[in-house]
């Protein structure tokens, strides 16, 4: 019997020839990620473990991105804890404000996560790196502490669901719509404890940026992680960034899948995930005159260059609706600079948008654009739970960047087709 890519990666890192879904393993980790919210809790556990040193100062990445630049005194104290831990343990991959980015955009860009690797991060969207053919999954702070101290984490080997995407993509349909379609189909717990492996002709034609967006939201279906088999597009992305050797793993032809789901995208329109669930998706044509107060473009889901480019293309020469605030968050400093060079930032500012330094910001209702009671936002982020972006009586509609830009211009949830 063949193995899935997930089984192969876990087997290799647990020092076993073979594992199967349902097995428990203690496996060696290639990289541990922490941010300014989850790391302070991990540091307390690190101390209580009695650990004096980290397992490998080059295999830990600390990215203060959630409540930074420091939003208040408590957040400042937490960011300071992260900084001091990084200094004390000489963590080589600590990224200070001004040099940092949103963790799941930054780590792939820096070549710190690679195909065939086993990555854990104390952030649920760590599954993003499945786009590179890594097994990458979110863990809690205690797990992160143990991983930082020992280089190990425990896993129940997951089953895999195979998603085959076929057909031709319509204009304005992107990776965001493909993942929303999948979540809409299986529900917010449709992939509980399982891996979502994406394949098919549509995936093969997708850019890395769109693949990251897709894998990023596997957690929104309860998935343990996502996986896309590395191909030429992956290797081109990785080859100019990789800081260490890596070994690709792909699923065997006779691997056992829990389920195979085919999605024909030919008729797929851009989608809107209506509150309060990412699975509550509607095609844009079914959305009728929903007025909005705010647009957020950015996050670990859609804060990459491709996302900014497409939004800028729609905004160019146009103005944001007088009743709307548009907030733009590039994923990293590098993306910020690229956007600057390409004239994208100028387009946003000219249109009347606020362009920020990278931060998770309002995505999780942290800072930089919370919603007041009764307000409504269109956002390219990943969650639209009750109160996610601010007041419990505010609402978030999730879309791709093209729809977000068009909505900002028209002051209501809209398709770029409606923009004159």
């Amino acid at each position, binding site marked *: 019997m063949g193995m899935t890519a997930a089984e192969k990666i876990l087997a290799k890192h647990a020092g076993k020839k073979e594992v199967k879904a349902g097995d*428990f393993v203690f496996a060696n980790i290639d990289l541990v990620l922490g941010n300014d*919210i*989850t790391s*302070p*809790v991990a540091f*307390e*556990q690190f101390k*209580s*473990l*009695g*650990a004096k*040193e980290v397992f490998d100062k080059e295999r830990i990445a600390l990215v203060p991105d*959630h*409540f930074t630049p420091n*939003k*208040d005194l*408590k*957040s400042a104290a*937490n960011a300071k804890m992260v900084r001091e831990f990084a200094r004390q343990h000489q963590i080589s991959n600590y990224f200070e404000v001004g040099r940092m980015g949103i963790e799941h955009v930054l780590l792939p860009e820096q070549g710190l996560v690679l195909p065939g690797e086993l990555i854990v*991060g*104390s*952030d*649920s969207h*760590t599954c993003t790196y499945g786009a590179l053919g890594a097994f990458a999954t*979110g*863990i*809690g*702070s*205690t*797990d992160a*502490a*143990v991983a930082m*101290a*020992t280089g*190990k984490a*425990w896993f*129940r080997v997951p089953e895999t669901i195979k998603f085959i995407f076929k057909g031709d993509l319509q204009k304005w349909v992107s990776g965001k719509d493909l993942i929303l379609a999948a979540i809409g189909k299986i529900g*917010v*717990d449709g992939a*509980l*404890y399982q891996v979502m492996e994406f394949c098919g002709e549509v995936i093969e034609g997708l850019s890395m940026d769109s693949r990251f967006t897709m894998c990023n939201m596997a*957690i929104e279906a*309860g998935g*343990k992680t996502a996986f896309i088999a590395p191909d030429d597009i992956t290797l081109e992305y990785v080859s100019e960034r990789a800081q260490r050797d890596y070994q690709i793993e792909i699923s065997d032809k006779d691997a056992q899948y829990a389920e195979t789901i085919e999605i024909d995208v030919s008729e797929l329109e851009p989608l809107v995930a209506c509150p309060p*669930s990412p699975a509550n998706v509607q095609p844009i044509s079914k959305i009728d005159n929903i007025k909005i107060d705010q647009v957020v473009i950015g996050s670990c889901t859609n804060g990459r260059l491709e996302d900014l480019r497409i939004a800028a293309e729609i905004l160019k020469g146009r103005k944001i609706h007088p009743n709307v605030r548009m907030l733009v968050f590039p994923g990293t400093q590098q993306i910020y600079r690229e956007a600057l060079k390409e004239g994208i930032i100028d387009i946003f500012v000219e249109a009347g948008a606020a362009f920020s330094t990278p931060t998770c910001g309002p995505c*999780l*209702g*942290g800072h930089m654009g919370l919603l007041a009671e009764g307000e409504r936002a269109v956002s390219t982020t990943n*969650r639209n*739970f*009750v*109160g*996610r972006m601010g007041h*419990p009586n505010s609402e978030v509609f999730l879309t791709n960047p093209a729809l977000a830009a068009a909505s900002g211009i028209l002051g209501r949830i809209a398709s770029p087709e409606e923009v004159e």
Partner: protein
Amino acid sequence: MKIKGIARKFPKDVDTDAIIPARYLNTQDEKELGKHCMEGIRPGFYDEINTGDIIMADTNFGCGSSREHAPIAIKGAGIKCVVAKSFARIFYRNCINIGLPVFECSKAFDESDEGDVISIDLENGVIYNETKNLSFEATPLPEFVRDIINAGGLTKFAKKFIK
């Protein structure tokens, strides 16, 4: 060990933003987080409940973010156990890692009401509804997971790996 408390029922897909809204994530203090437990879905929850109460939830409890602040807030509020039809993965392992008992049991949820007196035999995963005189068996925990719990949580379990 046996625990006893009042059932506090919750619907399906309770996310970690509902358990502890992100605006409180600037602290790690268990007591402080506990005061805001469930504020996103049931404001005033902390004032309603007594130490020892038990959360009973429908499917996919704890979905969303990886914040360990969620099970810490539940612990800090004085809740001694969470019984759900199913759990989101990261929340589930966070509970195991910090030593908050969790059990999967659909029948216990379906056949218990808010306010029922529940007692739980933690070793054997047996849930008694004393109000209705019913008994339920939770899905047994895998041996690997039981070893972590029996060690007193992941940090104690993992001490053997520290150089």
